[in-house]
């Protein structure tokens, strides 16, 4: 990449970032990392799209961990920030479900969007990028909660937005009814039967350990049985 060319969201090192003008809807110069990926992983990269100046690389979902690890570790790429992990489902039942990773290279001011395609009907499984980016933890949990995609290698894959024991499925799937699968009264009955503290033991909830950290005078008063209050 010569120092005079630029594209949306990026600039060469040492160059002042400029607001891109006249960016075409489709086409244009892709992020140089896309070409580097094609050279490094010829089998994994399936397609490279440039939309509104942003580069999307469609990779083999099974190899995404290797691809992301290389993008993170290679000194010419240095994608240090995982901005988002999400998924897209299309209304067309033939069209595969897309898992999307948004990566940003702070050092080179580059933005790269990775997509992995998952065929509907088959089990929805992709490798977790948690070993590389710890920020993937909650993002992948949300993706699992909303779409039911299993991230292999995630340390604690459970629901994050819906409550534990939510039994109606994954709300952002296209076959999920807007008002949920159960009746309103059944939804209310189930949620009121849920225990908000189900994930925590009584030992985790208690604040008895905090007693030793209180000022001596307060500890004395409390040990004497006095109740504070107004």
């Amino acid at each position, binding site marked *: 990449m010569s120092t005079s060319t630029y594209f949306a969201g990026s600039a060469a090192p040492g160059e002042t970032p400029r607001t891109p003008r006249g960016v075409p809807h489709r086409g244009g110069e892709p992020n140089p990392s896309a070409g580097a990926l094609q050279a490094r992983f010829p089998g994994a990269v399936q397609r490279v799209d440039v939309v509104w100046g942003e580069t999307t690389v469609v990779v083999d979902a099974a190899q995404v961990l290797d691809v992301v690890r290389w993008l993170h570790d290679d000194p010419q790429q240095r994608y240090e920030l995982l901005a988002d992990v999400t998924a897209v489902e299309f209304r067309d039942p033939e069209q595969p479900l897309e898992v999307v990773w948004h990566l940003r290279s702070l050092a080179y001011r580059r933005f790269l969007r990775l997509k992995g395609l998952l065929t509907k009907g088959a089990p929805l499984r992709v490798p977790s990028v948690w070993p590389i980016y710890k920020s993937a933890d909650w993002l992948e949990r949300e993706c699992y909660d909303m779409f039911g995609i299993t991230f292999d290698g995630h340390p604690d894959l459970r629901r994050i937005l819906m409550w534990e024991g939510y039994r109606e499925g994954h709300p952002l799937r296209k076959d999920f009814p807007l008002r949920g699968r159960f009746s309103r009264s059944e939804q209310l009955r189930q*949620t009121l039967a849920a225990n908000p503290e189900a994930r925590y033991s009584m030992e985790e909830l208690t*604040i008895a350990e905090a007693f030793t950290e209180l000022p001596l005078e307060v500890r004395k008063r409390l040990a004497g049985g006095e109740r504070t209050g107004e």
Partner: protein
Amino acid sequence: MGLISRPARSAESADVSAGQESWLTTRLDLLVNWGRANSLWPMPFGTACCAIEFMATAASRFDLARFGMERLASSPRQADVLICAGRVPLKLAPVLRRIYQQMPQPKWVISMGACASSGGMFDNYAVVQGIDTIIPVDVYVPGCPPRPEALMYGILMLQRKVMNERMADASLRHEIVPDPSSQLYIPPSAIDELSEPFGNSVHQTRSGL
């Protein structure tokens, strides 16, 4: 605008002639309700944009303190009126009900805004369609979100309702008794243990009225 429904002349009689001990007679209901209505401590349960309007109501321009409500009790155990401002997701429903159960009697609930009252535009899988499906509600304030004037009007309506209560009417103080067989149940001994180091006001006693 300070006091609502000043006691009628016939309901009280006082002798304040100089040099003598003053005395006053009134109905006990009236006196107690007058005290309660003008010192409601709200528990703000703000989940959305209605909470912003509630903050404006409590701030200096609209000044909730005029109605004896300047003391916001963020602990349900010190609160009289629960103001639910904003949409309540189903995940929050058991939390809201537990907060209501933790409030000591007498207690009232204001449902502020369209979402708290009916689910509003969020007619979907995640949002409770009106908090009256979880807890009893005394006053509904419409609006999306209601302006501070609307909330204050609702508060004045609640004060009028409080003024008309009878202590002898036990149905007003009907309590949802926690069911020991439910997953929600925490025995009182465990609540004591949890609140011990900081002396939660659960140990306070009320007048018993």
